């Protein structure tokens, strides 16, 4: 709809293509002006910082730990190939993958269960899934720190069960546990949305055509819920890969992951160019994952 508010007085004139074009232009301008504040804001406070990161990634670390922007080189990218960095990258990707798979295995049945309840129960159950999701992320990680620590409830329980003292804290297991805890809702919600959209008549049709439960799942339910699976997987993998708080609290010094490594470059090791290049690589991975999702015709989240 193109609407012009005032330029014409109450007596109209005959329509012409020029008038129409002017009206469309005015409408377009309105839209642009509405968008302008956020647009400008994001350019200044997002695009520019991004460019600066890229610039820094080509800079050199001078002897005092500052950054020398004059000499441009690929040093920090070369550093990415070093064994230490590669090890950290692999470990981070591996843990993110494990987290995603666990979330999928636990989350899918849960999402299905949720989607097949009656509408009223469903809403209540959804609310109760959302509540932990909305509570403070730091606190949720800290809770696990308390549980898994020495003399904490976990060791007490395993002692009680005769399994001996189990210390899970400061291990990769603890980190995965924390990541799953943090991101399971991100897997459940898109899965639930996707499954809920599926016409239950399709599953009935599959039964009518002699498929058993497993076959119905594999050949009807799973393919149809694939958009949800992909969305949920990306929503779990991406933050897990860049996680910082969880590994710091639950992982300890033995497990250095990408997030912590990047932060160290800026706080202690003072190698800003390396930190910049690592951040950039992290973002590139994220962007490609998202692009893959959209290419596969994913719906907007």
């Amino acid at each position, binding site marked *: 709809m193109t609407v012009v508010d005032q330029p014409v007085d109450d007596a109209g004139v005959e329509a012409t293509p020029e008038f129409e074009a002017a009206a469309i232009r005015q409408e377009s301008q309105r*839209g642009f002006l509405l968008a302008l504040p*956020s647009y400008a804001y994001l350019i200044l406070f997002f695009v520019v910082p991004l460019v600066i990161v890229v610039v820094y990634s080509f800079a050199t670390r001078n002897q005092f730990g500052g950054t020398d922007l004059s000499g441009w080189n690929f040093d920090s990218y070369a550093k990415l190939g070093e064994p230490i960095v590669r090890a950290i990258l692999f470990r981070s990707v591996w843990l993110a993958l494990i987290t995603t798979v666990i979330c999928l295995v636990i989350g899918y049945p849960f999402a299905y269960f949720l989607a097949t309840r009656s509408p009223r129960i469903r809403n209540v159950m959804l*609310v109760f899934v959302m509540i932990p999701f909305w509570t403070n992320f730091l606190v949720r990680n800290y809770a696990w720190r308390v549980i898994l620590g020495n003399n904490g409830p976990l060791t007490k329980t395993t002692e009680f069960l005769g399994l001996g003292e189990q210390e899970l804290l400061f291990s990769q297991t603890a980190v995965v546990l924390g990541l799953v805890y943090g991101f399971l809702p991100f897997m459940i919600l898109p899965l639930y949305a996707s499954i809920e959209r599926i016409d239950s008549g399709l599953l*009935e049709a599959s039964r009518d055509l002699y498929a058993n439960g497993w076959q119905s799942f594999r050949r009807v339910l799973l393919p149809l819920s694939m958009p949800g699976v992909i969305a949920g997987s990306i929503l779990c993998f991406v933050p897990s890969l860049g996680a910082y708080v969880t590994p710091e609290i639950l992982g300890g010094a033995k497990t250095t992951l990408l997030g912590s490594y*990047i932060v160290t470059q800026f706080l202690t090791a003072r190698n800003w160019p390396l930190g910049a290049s690592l951040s950039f690589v992290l973002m590139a991975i994220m962007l490609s994952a998202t692009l893959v999702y959209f290419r596969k015709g994913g719906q907007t989240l």
Partner: protein
Amino acid sequence: MSSAVEPRGWTKAMLHANGWLVYLFFYAPILLLVIFSFSASRNVGTWGGWTFDWYREFSDNQSARNALSDSLKVAVFSTVVSVVLGTMAALSLERFTFRGKQVFDALLYLPIIIPDVTMAVMMLLFFSEFFDAINFVFGLNMRKGFNSIVASHIAFSISFVSVVVRARLAGMDSKMEEAALDLYATRWKAFRHVTLPQISPGIAGGALLAMTLSLDDVVITQFVAGPGWTTLPVYVFGLIRKGVTPLINAISVVMLIASMTLVVLSLVLERARGGTGTQ
């Protein structure tokens, strides 16, 4: 779903069990944390009898209280700005076409998918350069502090708010705005009387989201905070790295209750509005 296709027997039992276990998984740590915050034992995680000592310690602790008020200031300020900007952005994308719209649309998605570590690095580098430049040009002595924290929070919140409001706008029949104009409303009145009431749940949701994101944030704030400014999560995070103490338990529970209150509040609000028969 008809009972003929519902899983039976073993599968059904597993599904139900999985469901309950997930809920247990979600809530047990939180409940345990709350319980232990009342434990009189110096050893976090062991039970030593009831006490409110840790909460008292929290209310006496000046730095903790400062961090709390700083957090609130930052959250409120950044929420207000990002809600206004985000709503305008959503309106422009859903109701108008203009040159560069697709670029803007894509740009708005970036802060959502970007990992917060990368964003922290971006903002750190940006403010170092930015303040250097400003101080050089204008002879000021600006430093990182409230401004940089708020500016960063706004940067990521705008996108989240706009996504929520856009969903609301898209779900609304745009013919209603046409109907309003047909009934002699001006553009502004149509917005105020027809569009705004219908997207206000979205705006409220977006505000809640922005607030939560701001109060939750650790890494970005840590990187861009200046001397004398720290938010509660960053403060707590620092404490945790130094060593776990019961005080942290108490602070955590307070933060927990605060965020839960926000959630419940928003649900109540949505009930109140939803009860009026909107879709």
